[in-house]
């Protein structure tokens, strides 16, 4: 990382580049709306609350000059951040909840793995180490402390196809256990982000070990992002991700605005 050779003039130049459009700001966030799917667990488990809005007043008898709402949702509704404490493998790690994660970790570069072509043909597409090595052959090694974002174009699908719930569970793409273990151990990634409802494959309950994305990422104190969109507007390498969750005490995650900064070559 740059140290003393990075000056406030550089920061100002960066701000100027954002203002001029030389640095593009790409919004990777889905709009929070009641109809947006949330993860569904078997009914005997506790369920994540979807996004809901209750109007407090709207220039009416409840408040003549102002409009505002109450909203409710779970920590894992809409485009959201997973903190390590979300998973049992990360429960004993230090600084593992959204309020204690060092704020510098909310800014990090990203590698975007494009598997949208494969996913268009196969909803059960599973990301393997071979896919990652093929990506590295083209774009160079995935640097340490990089987000790995899986571009599936899943965010472009309408609700039912997006959730793709069948009698045997969800059929949505995601990583294999080997790929997750490799990203965490061999590449020391910053975190893993997806366009689907969760970071894991739709059938990940049947993987061995189950839910490898959650298990490995959070077990290593790393982060998850899901329900992302607009990944097709990012370069394979070089985008900077700004992803600061709400500062919820002992929060396991949080809906958030995810922004990518892209300097077009």
């Amino acid at each position, binding site marked *: 990382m740059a140290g003393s050779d990075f000056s406030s003039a550089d920061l100002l130049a960066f701000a100027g580049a954002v203002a001029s459009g030389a640095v593009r700001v790409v919004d990777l966030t889905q709009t929070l709306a009641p*109809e947006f799917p949330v993860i569904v667990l078997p009914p005997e488990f506790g369920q994540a609350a979807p996004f809901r*809005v209750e109007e407090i007043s709207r220039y009416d008898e409840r408040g003549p000059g102002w409009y505002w709402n109450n909203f409710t949702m779970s920590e894992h509704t809409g485009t959201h951040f997973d903190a390590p404490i979300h998973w049992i493998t990360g429960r004993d790690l230090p600084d593992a909840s959204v309020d204690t994660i060092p704020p510098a970790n909310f800014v990090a570069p990203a590698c975007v793995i494009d598997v949208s072509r494969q996913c268009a043909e196969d909803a059960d597409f599973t990301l393997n180490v071979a896919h990652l090595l093929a990506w590295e052959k083209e774009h160079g090694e995935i640097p340490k402390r990089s987000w790995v974002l899986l571009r599936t174009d899943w965010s472009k699908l309408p609700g039912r196809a997006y959730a793709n719930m069948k009698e045997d569970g969800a059929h949505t793409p995601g990583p294999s256990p080997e790929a997750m273990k490799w990203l965490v151990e061999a590449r020391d990634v910053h975190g893993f982000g997806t366009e689907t409802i969760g970071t894991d494959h739709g059938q990940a309950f049947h993987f061995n070990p189950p839910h490898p994305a959650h298990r490995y990422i959070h077990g290593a104190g790393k982060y998850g992002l899901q329900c992302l969109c607009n990944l097709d507007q990012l370069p394979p390498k070089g985008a900077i991700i700004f992803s600061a969750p709400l500062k919820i005490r002992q929060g396991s995650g949080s809906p958030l605005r995810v922004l990518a900064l892209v300097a077009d070559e």
Partner: protein
Amino acid sequence: MTEPLVRPKRKDPLKRTRLPLSPPGARSRTALGLATAAAQGRFMLQVCQDCAKTIYPPRDACPGCFAPAPPFCDVPDGGVLLAVTTIRTSTDAYYRERMPWRVGTVRLDCGPSVVAHVHGDCAEGDRVAMSLKLDRSGQAAAFALPARETPDMADDKQLREMTCDPKFRRALVTDGRTAVGQACAKALSEAGCTIVFVGIADAWKPFPGEEALRKTANVEIVPLDLTNSESVGDLAADIGGRVDIVVNTAEHVRPGGIMARKGLVVAREEMDVRYFGLMRLAQAFGPALRFRGADGVNSAAAFVNFLFVHALANWPEFGAYSATEAACLSASHSLRAELRPGGVKFINIFHGPLETEWFQPLPPPKVAPSALARSAVDALKRGLEDVFVGDIAQDIRERFLADPKTLEREL
């Protein structure tokens, strides 16, 4: 012969909607016993416990022997129509716009003679079946019906004023994901509803029975999530003026007492689906229902609500769920009063365990969703307010009426 109803034309958008009026509604406290009977579809009059005289109209003491407070009892409903007349004008605003109106005197087999509203198929000298109906002010009205079913009997203009018959009306079934919702959609369609709107939440989640539901005649699937105020408001904005009967089939049955559970997530879901869902529906659809209470043949008629019978007395095995249902029961009483100025009935259908997934571990007797739906349609056709479906619901009701405290201890 009753003239069969003709499917109403679409409303002339240039015409003002007539405001609903109520027939005279003042009654003595004692006379409310008739409304209690009418609400359940029973024919009850006071019977003196000392001299066995059947009493009408209601009295605070037996007019024969002066014994105080004669109780209301089920009595035989047969009688003879002694005389009938047609009223052609009235100073009462409600009846004035409904003239002509047939009334008559019926000598009941059980003793008294009563002045009653008379069905068009009853002629002087006929045997009649006397009934108590709830009129548009929510009060009991004596109504003489043909002793035997006649063709298109339910289409009688005067009778239809007292009932909520689904024929040619448009219904909204609020949750088509449930077995009860699907059974209601089918039953309402078969009962002659012009349209049965069926609400589906989270269209992205498939559900059993979806294909059959979509194929049911007159069913139109609409997006509706009772846990989402915006969704309920949006649907009311679209179809609120075209819904004459709301049937709330949303359910959230979960076992367990209150201490048996950890945290409030499930309790909140129960309250959100059931209690707040009912409130959202009432706020979004209630005002239009009440406004359209006199809007022609397909006027707004009823709000049907299913209730777990342990709303009356908590069953700790389903303790939190029972508490939610008790909240819904209380809300139903408020809504009944709020809808009454429109002449719109609020119908509570009480049931015990159902033949559905969340009651799976319980032994029979359980009520089939189709039986529950039939009861709802029957209640609409007869204009009832309180219906107890199945052995368990009836048993709990009887024990509750006998002594609520004893029932609490028994449960």
